[in-house]
């Protein structure tokens, strides 16, 4: 209580001088230190979205299936038969960069709480991760971060018993000082049982459930998430919370019991800014006030001050509004699960958030000022100088063609961005809850909905390098690719959750990237009928003034009326025909080939033709739904050759399962399928093989069904490349053989990364 609420104190808490003045105006004079601490959190970038709100309004957010758009803990989508899916993705970048294991673990914990707070049982997690380059002596820290993050995700998710079934991992130098950890979660609920975090009913109890409150995570949202990193990185470690998945598992069971039994009026989880944000948001939405007694909060450390209690980010805590008549039942449920349950305040008619400390009023703030009326800032944007308008001019001098395309293919398959991610996802339980139809490594995760024929599919996508070269086109392509991945497994894309990772928004060039990316995403979401239902913005992803690649991660949900119609990307039977759908065009700009083989990142990525994309995806789903298409694979990083290689390697699996031992014969089939392919292209051979383009997919079809497929693809460019064969991938162009490699050798390269990191 001794701390004084001076301007100096305000700046130390992350506020600006102007914000300090605005606070004095609202409060009618000097705020108390508790009030100042509360404002500093709620007006931080992380909680207030002050830089992003005006731009985010560009997103389409409604549609016939959308039951809940942005503004709640998670978006909710109708998936049929009275079922709905709640989903959201959130960043935990800064905590993970400081302390990777706990940072990532608590990222999972936080997003899972957002899901069950809506009344949904969490059924799947995905994680979109970015690190610096991981190979080589000089990158030991990146391996430390990677190991910690993957370990933390597994630790938390495995313990909860929620399958981690998908995601992506990329390695680029731009993330070396600021890794990205975006955790996505989704849950299943009845469409008529959505719970919203709105406080109501003056006289009702405010009840805190779960862990005791400690000093962990103080200032997490303001000090960590809303500032750039510099040499003081290590000092920020105490701002990272420590996760306790065991308590969260009990919370899930207890809270779902409370919600499904209608024992509570509403519920909110304590995330960034802890008790402060959860209480002010609930009060603001309900147009009521809350009186909270900070001294009644169960503590881990007895000597905590009220401002610390109010902003602590201790994990695994929930806030509920409970009618007095229901308190005994609520207490019974929580006690049965060995959870603390404490009445810490009551709902009032005042519309103010009032904090008491042993009956002394220590803070009194209008709730809506905190939750909904934080200052809005729109930075004047400017196009950065590095952006170019033209693609690279490819000549035999600037980009000499390789002598041996087979060697390039092996090199690409071994490159960290393309190589198998099995060494990561084997640390995740991807099968618990008994819904998983396709395991990690596929184009998308596919799950059934128990008791119905229906199913759902999820993916996350974003090529940060593409977004760096052209944020508008790159972000648009990320949405298109996510939808294409879902269409490749036969699911209809229906909604997006996004995690927009950018640098410091106070810089005009960064703000330009942000505006451009949102515009690109919005256009694609409109064209593909996938509204944005939830999401998160993470700014200040910079270290020592150097920003990450702009990385707007797209998490997307797809639905099936009949999930038995899903396919994966593996070749199925010898003799099947291989068809490339999409235009005969490909760009070196921003491709993995350009980076890995030529050591450059340059040019301008192509613009997705959204009309073509929409028609292509509809044809894919149609062909899969009619049992015509037997396998489908998005043609992405590494181009056509890598797509063919991945489908061949996957043929060694059964049910999407790989043998644990790359040297052992593939389980089930006993050997790999390969392909004999003749590429007819106007492009230089290496570009036809390895350069990249949107709106392309490789599918296989039984020869008897080729005519039907041709008919389905009548208004789309497509070519029959060749056929599925045994054991060898062979590609010719005209008279010349470009490459011929045993699939087991492809697999060896594809699985070689872990051994290179020891």
């Amino acid at each position, binding site marked *: 209580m001794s701390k004084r609420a001076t301007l100096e104190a305000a700046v130390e808490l992350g506020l600006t001088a102007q914000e300090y003045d605005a606070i004095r105006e609202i409060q009618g004079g000097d705020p108390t230190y508790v009030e100042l601490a509360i404002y500093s959190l709620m007006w931080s970038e992380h909680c207030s979205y002050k830089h992003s709100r005006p731009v985010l309004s560009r997103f389409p957010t409604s549609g016939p299936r959308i039951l809940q758009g942005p503004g709640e803990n998670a978006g909710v989508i109708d998936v049929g038969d009275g079922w709905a899916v709640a989903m959201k993705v959130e960043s935990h970048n800064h905590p993970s960069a400081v302390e990777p294991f706990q940072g990532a673990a608590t990222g999972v914990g936080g997003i899972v709480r957002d899901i069950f707070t809506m009344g949904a049982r969490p059924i799947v997690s995905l994680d979109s991760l970015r690190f610096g380059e991981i190979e080589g002596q000089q990158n030991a820290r990146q391996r430390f971060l990677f190991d910690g993050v993957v370990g933390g995700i597994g630790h938390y998710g495995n313990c909860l018993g929620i399958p981690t079934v998908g995601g992506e991992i990329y390695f680029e130098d731009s993330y070396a000082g600021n890794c990205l950890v975006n955790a996505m979660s989704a849950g299943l609920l009845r469409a008529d049982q959505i719970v919203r975090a709105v406080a109501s009913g003056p006289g009702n109890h405010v009840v805190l459930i779960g862990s005791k409150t400690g000093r962990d995570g103080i200032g997490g949202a303001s000090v960590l998430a809303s500032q750039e990193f510099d040499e003081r990185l290590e000092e920020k470690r105490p701002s990272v919370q420590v996760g306790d998945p065991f308590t969260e598992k009990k919370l899930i069971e207890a809270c779902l019991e409370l919600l499904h039994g209608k024992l509570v009026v509403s519920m909110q989880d304590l995330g960034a800014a802890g008790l402060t944000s959860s209480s002010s948001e609930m009060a603001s939405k309900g147009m009521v006030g809350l009186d909270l007694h900070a001294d009644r909060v169960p503590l881990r450390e007895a000597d905590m001050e009220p401002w610390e209690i109010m902003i602590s980010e201790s994990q695994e805590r929930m806030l509920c509004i409970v009618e007095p008549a229901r308190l005994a039942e609520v207490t019974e449920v929580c006690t049965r699960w060995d959870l603390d349950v404490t009445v810490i305040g009551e709902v009032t008619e005042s519309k103010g958030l009032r904090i008491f400390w042993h009956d002394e009023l220590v803070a009194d703030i209008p709730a809506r000022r905190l939750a909904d009326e934080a200052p809005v800032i729109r930075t004047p944007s400017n196009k950065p100088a590095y952006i170019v308008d033209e693609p690279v001019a490819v000549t035999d001098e600037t980009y000499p063609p390789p002598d041996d395309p087979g060697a390039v293919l092996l090199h690409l398959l071994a490159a960290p961005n393309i190589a198998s991610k099995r060494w990561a996802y*084997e*640390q995740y339980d991807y*099968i*618990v*809850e*008994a819904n998983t*139809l396709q395991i990690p490594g596929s184009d998308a995760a596919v799950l059934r909905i128990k008791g119905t024929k229906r199913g759902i599919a999820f993916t996350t996508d974003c090529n940060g390098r593409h977004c760096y070269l052209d944020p508008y086109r790159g972000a648009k392509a990320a949405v298109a690719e996510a939808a294409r991945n879902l269409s490749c497994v036969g699911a209809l894309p229906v909604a997006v959750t996004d995690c927009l990772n950018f640098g410091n928004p106070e810089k005009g060039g960064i703000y330009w990237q942000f505006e451009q990316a949102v515009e690109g995403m919005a256009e694609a979401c409109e064209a593909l009928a996938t509204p944005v239902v939830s999401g998160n913005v993470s700014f200040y992803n910079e270290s020592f003034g150097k920003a990450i690649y702009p990385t707007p991660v797209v998490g997307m949900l797809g639905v099936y009326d009949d999930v038995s119609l899903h396919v994966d990307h593996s070749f199925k039977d010898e003799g099947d025909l291989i068809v490339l759908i999409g235009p005969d065009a490909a760009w070196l700009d921003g491709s993995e080939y350009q980076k890995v083989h030529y050591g450059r990142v340059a040019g301008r990525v192509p613009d997705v033709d959204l009309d073509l994309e929409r028609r292509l995806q509809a044809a894919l789903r149609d062909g899969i739904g009619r049992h015509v298409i037997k396998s489908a694979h998005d043609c992405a990083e590494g181009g056509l050759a890598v797509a063919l290689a991945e489908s061949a390697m996957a043929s060694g699996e059964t049910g999407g399962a790989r043998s644990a031992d790359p040297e*052992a014969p593939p389980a089930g089939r006993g050997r790999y399928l390969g392909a004999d392919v003749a590429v007819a292209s106007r492009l230089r051979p290496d570009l036809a093989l390895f350069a990249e383009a949107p709106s392309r997919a490789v599918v296989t079809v039984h020869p008897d069904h080729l005519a039907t497929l041709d008919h389905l693809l009548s208004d789309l460019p497509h070519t029959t490349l060749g056929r599925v064969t045994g054991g060898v991938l062979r590609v010719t162009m005209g008279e010349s053989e470009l490459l011929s490699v045993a699939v087991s050798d492809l697999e060896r390269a594809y699985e070689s990364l872990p051994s290179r990191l020891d």
Partner: protein
Amino acid sequence: MRFGIVVFPGSNTDADCWQAVATFPGAEPQFLWHKHDTVGDVDAIILPGGFSYGDYLRCGAIARFSPIMGAVADFAADGGLVLGICNGFQTLLEAGLLPGAMLRNIGLKFVCRYVNLRVENADTPFTRSCHEGDLLRIVVKHNEGNYTADPETLAALQANGQVLLRYVDAAGRRTPTANPNGALDDIAGVCNATHNVFGLMPHPENSVEAALAGGADGRRIFQSMINTLLLSRAQA
């Protein structure tokens, strides 16, 4: 036939076990709460997978002190069938209902992977629907599945036919890479001397439906238990 499934705080395949049992006609799952000290009228007991009490201490070391465990021990002593899966296996080891102990995986990492299991003894209540040498393809997912025992115990296990499952490759051979956790002698599952308590690290409850990624090889374990119960009923 009633299968009692124990729910500890932190159990997380309890619901999957329930679902798995329910796929068998005539088998009736029911949950048993860890704070109760009786198991009621059940014909078999399953200790499911998960992280009981968070497993912040040694896995299963707290769960073994739950009130229900006394009743489970009595049930086993009376010859009742008890199946411990993963964390349930660890808890049975801690409770002394099975011989041996569990170490961290040799790779020091959680491992979720399909493994091939060779049936080493088909003449038990848990494997009678298999033939010796059969291969079951089931997922393991654990941090601490590195089974160990002293040489005398291992010799006794071997002599009494208590090693029911071993990790092998797809061709049925024992190889170092087929063993996901470093377990002694490639042991994936053992039973007690009277063959009525069985613990295994792989998850048969996530392998009962062919359409799912987990496959259906796990059915053989549950089917064996059901057949055993039917047989004893017929003989009674």
